[in-house]
């Protein structure tokens, strides 16, 4: 009796993936080929960015009596436990969800895209909240009969289509449905939808990709990867820089070269080579306390955070960035414009009181920063958005001039403040390193808390300050580094300083 089984297909999709379109295609395909089709879904959920399940069952009509009026097969509206033949997911985490929901079993062929569509939880988390996809991928291998995957979204996008077309191609290539490739393509061609040519191209590329995959499985490659430090170049074209390159090679151990070289370039890009040398001197001081046994962890962490710390985000930096050639290219790339097209940009700026005061000479800034009257005056007269068309000639010139004020930067209050903060932090690291090396590494890491602009920057700074004070006060306590590491992770994950405050108070 069980020989007459429907083919059971579940599709897990996220908003904008065209799950409805793909479901419609599969239904059409099966009906064209003599199957009775039933599918169902919950309307409107995917659109509003939730995840949703489309469920389809295909039943061969040759098993039915003459017409459907006489006999309609009794099909299901949701997958039974471990009872899905083909599981498709348009996103990696949705593939994981299908296993979590018990749809997948050793008879299931999984076809999924490895692209990531980040959930709000991952996005709003401070620090790096992006889930580890490799763990999900391992589950798909472990719990399904066969797992076919690739960045199908990328294939679709490359061809100017959406993921439903490449998923359809992957389904065709998987050999899980008893229909020819031509039958699949016919469905797209007769669908009457938009962008048929692009869909067919996307279909074909995905088809080929999965065909190749089935003969030669490819390893899992995460869609999103953090950047890695590149090795030190053997030579550089700029004469002055190559002097410094040699200096790094001779003064610093090999294990630290990549970070320091990155850091140096970051700082030079921000200011100039002279400033870069200051950076190297500061790193060198830390190196004296470090050793090869510790794999130069302290030097690496300090070099990394120091570069970011010294290249703080002031008005000059922002203005400079907004007028760079690189920026212009990035805009064109981000909006998908061709090189010969006209793209104008409107920038949303709103410098806060601190940022403006930071631009004043150090002494003047020190005088005004805590001046309530001045702050109030600013709030009333100047504290508003400064939206500007950065591609307008006048605005561009203004930003350009401002971005060129590097000489001035060295005299500003912001620079004075940042340097004081950096130097105290380095001093603290040095003091602590003599007592507790691992704690010093954590303190070096803690500079990561300082980022953003305006209020965010203030919050970050106060978390940084709290943690540093706690570490310095307790550096003689055994195993204090564990506690500080914990505080750091809590401080990173909670944008508000309250959690950090509470935690420190409780320790």
């Amino acid at each position: 009796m069980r020989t007459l089984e429907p083919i059971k297909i579940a599709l897990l999709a996220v908003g904008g993936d065209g799950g409805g379109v793909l479901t419609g295609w599969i239904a059409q395909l099966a009906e064209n080929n003599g199957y009775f089709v039933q599918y169902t879904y919950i309307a409107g959920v995917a659109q509003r960015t939730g995840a949703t399940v489309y469920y389809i069952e295909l039943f061969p009509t040759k098993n039915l009596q003459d017409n459907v009026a006489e006999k309609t097969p009794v099909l299901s509206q949701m997958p039974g436990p471990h009872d899905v033949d083909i599981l498709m997911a348009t996103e990696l985490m949705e593939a994981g969800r299908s296993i979590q929901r018990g749809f997948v079993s050793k008879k299931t062929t999984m076809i999924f895209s490895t692209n990531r569509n980040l959930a709000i939880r991952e996005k709003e988390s401070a620090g790096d909240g992006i889930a580890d996809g490799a763990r999900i991928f391992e589950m798909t291998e472990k719990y399904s009969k066969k797992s076919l995957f690739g960045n199908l979204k990328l294939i679709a996008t490359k061809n100017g289509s959406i993921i439903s077309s490449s998923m359809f191609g992957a389904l065709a290539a998987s050999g899980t449905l008893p229909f020819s490739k031509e039958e699949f393509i016919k469905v797209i061609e007769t669908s009457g939808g938009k962008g048929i040519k692009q869909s067919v191209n996307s279909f074909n590329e995905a088809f080929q990709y999965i065909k190749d995959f089935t003969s030669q499985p490819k390893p899992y490659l995460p869609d999103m990867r953090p950047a890695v430090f590149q090795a030190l170049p053997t030579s550089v074209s700029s004469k002055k820089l190559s002097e410094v390159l040699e200096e790094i090679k001779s003064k610093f151990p090999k294990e630290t070269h990549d970070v320091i070289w990155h850091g140096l370039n970051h700082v030079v890009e921000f200011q100039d080579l002279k400033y870069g040398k200051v950076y190297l001197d500061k790193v060198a001081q830390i190196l004296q306390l470090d050793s090869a046994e510790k794999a130069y962890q302290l030097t690496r962490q300090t070099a990394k955070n120091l570069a970011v710390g010294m290249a703080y985000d002031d008005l000059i930096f922002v203005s400079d960035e907004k007028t760079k050639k690189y920026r212009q290219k990035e805009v064109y790339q981000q909006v998908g414009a061709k090189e010969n097209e006209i793209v104008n940009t409107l920038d949303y700026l709103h410098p806060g009181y601190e940022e403006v005061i930071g631009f004043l000479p150090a002494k003047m800034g020190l005088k005004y920063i805590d001046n309530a009257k001045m702050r109030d005056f600013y709030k009333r007269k100047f504290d508003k958005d400064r939206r500007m068309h950065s591609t307008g000639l006048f605005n561009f010139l203004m930003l350009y001039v401002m971005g060129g004020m590097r000489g001035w930067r060295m005299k500003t209050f912001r620079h004075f403040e940042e340097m004081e903060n950096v130097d105290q932090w380095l001093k603290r690291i040095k003091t602590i390193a003599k007592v507790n090396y691992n704690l010093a590494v954590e303190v070096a890491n803690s500079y990561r808390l300082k980022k953003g602009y305006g209020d965010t920057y203030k919050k970050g700074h106060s978390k940084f300050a709290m943690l540093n004070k706690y570490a310095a006060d307790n550096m003689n306590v055994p195993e204090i580094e564990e506690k500080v590491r914990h505080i750091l992770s809590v401080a990173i994950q909670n944008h508000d300083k309250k959690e950090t405050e509470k935690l420190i108070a409780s320790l």
Partner: protein
Amino acid sequence: MAERSFKHEVEKLRLGEGEIFHGEGILAVTKALLQCGVGYVGGYQGSPISHLMDVFADADPLLKELGVYFENSASEAGAAAMLSASVMYPVRGAVTWKSTVGTNVASDALSNLASSGVTGGTVVIIGEDYGEGSSIMQERTHAFAMKSQMWLIDPRPNLPSIVHFTEKAFQLSEASNTPVFLELRVRSCHLYGQFVAKENQKPKYTLGEALNNPVRDVNRIVLPPASFLQEEDKIKRRLPAAIQFIKDNKMNEFLSGERDDIGIIVQGALFNNLNRALVQFDLSDHLGNVKIPVYVMNVTYPVIDDEVLEFCKGKRAVLLVEEGQPNYIEQSIGLTMFHNEVKTKLHGKDLLPMGGDYTIGRLETALGEFFNLYQKEIEITEKEGAITILPEDAKTLSEAVPARPAGFCTGCPERPIFAALKLVQQNMGDYHVSADIGCHLFSILPPFNIGATTMGYGLGGASASAFNMDFVRKDNGQKRVISIMGDGGFWHNGLTTGITNAVFNNNDGLTIIIDNNYAAATGGQDVPSSRFNNKIRTINNPIEKAVHGVGVKHVDFIDNTYDVDKMVKVITKALTSNEKGPKVIIAQSECMLNKQRRDNKVKKKKLEEKKRVVNEKFGVDSKVCTGDHECMRLSGCPSLTLTYSDNPLREDPIATIDSSCVACGNCGEVAEAAVLCPSFYKAQVVKNPTSWEKFKHNVKQNIFSYLQKRREKKRQLA
């Protein structure tokens, strides 16, 4: 203009005798109504029957051809009251809404209708929003059917069955002079399948005829003494008539099996799940040829006692598969068995969970236990490929797989309103916010986390009414209550229960009316204040006028909700002023999905004609963004997401905007209003620019390039 157009699909409604209809459940129901010669249809949208209203609207030309009247009712109460047209006249009417919330709203009219009784067949198609995928509280419509004596049909979930029972519902209604509920579960509304069509029928008796030959009968009006007689009539005549009709027409099914010592009683809509579970025990096939006797209750109220007794005869035990709680059917059957001294053991909620969806998995478990008790020889066949997820892997999955709560769409004009409200709370401390039903309810979820209660559609204002501190001056720190109301809810009942009531009772709270031009949450249906292109309704009735009309003095109207800075100021003012009486802010910007649908058409046409078009999109400067994610917590826009920086010094991912951006401007506005960061920019790509524009662009580019090269050179030398 609704989110989904059925203009193309409604053509299927014209199919004639013997042709095969392929399509979704809601279309099938519409087709069935036309086949039944329905005279008028109405209803109020809400998942899962929103699309049924959209199908009606898109089928308006065909309805007119057939002489069928259709209206978008003001509320479910309005829809139920509309059915009174069938009280005195033999005209068939059907309305639809989401249950159980819609049934609650409609209950006053429904009670009256059920008491009066009907002459023409009246059918209420209810979208039973129960189980996974439901957006409301889990309650059964069954209770309403019982207390008002309306019959409840819960048919097997396939299109031929749904269509067949739509026809039967009218007949049953007429045979027993009682309105009938036709219950469609969430998944059946969107169930794609096929059935054999019949010819559409014009109404046998028209509304026009009725108006020209008015009939009145005081005995049909719910007033004593008639109301007492109506109760008698329900018991003595209508119920027996219904039972007779249900039996005669074999609306419930007796499926015979190989064994006769046990049996299963199931609600029609759950038959497919039951059958699939039986297949796992090799006790059925996919054509529904069960090996155990099954009594399928396609009519779940009234329960036909004779049929139940007949089914139980000679059986040691029956398992009742009845979803949801309380277990009304089990109570009813149990009592019948008790009165008739039937010795059959009745199982139900003892083996099945009290609440929740009866999924195939749950039924398999219950059947296993049931068979263990009575059928030792039945063995559970090992499922092909079955595998158990190890506990540690289950843990990994639950940690790694993120929830995807529903949220505002890309470009939604409501997002900036809640970003502004969040900023206001950051400045002035938290407020009690009384939320309402609609898209704006997504504000209770991350990243906004705003809203304390939600009591019903349009009741945002009313549920804030206790918090009336009109006797306390606001400059002494006394906070005001904030309530939210959508335009859909406003017209549904919010104008009276929220606004007018606040005026009448001098409530000094703040009501923010979120006007996006449509009932957007249910799929973008028009409301009286909608503004664009509706040929069959009268729109353009501003909310502002209505609010002024009922006597609100303090009304702020914002026609660009994306101006976050202004929103913050207006809200702050309304919360801090010493002015007495209700404060109303009407925050109006069009639902982006609808706007895009209109604008894109125009743009496409312009591009085809080689006319100048400006495409807008937002971006984030990757080097300026520091990866603090503050913008995520104030925006939550689906197109605003993260990517890893190409600079390994910055380890936290940075913001980026994907290609789905519709350039609403929310992210930039929020960045400005909250003084977040200078990373956001709006890019305007000019298609088919004018010659002057091209010239200007080229000159500028030359100057920019010269300056950029100059600085790069200097940087290299420095």
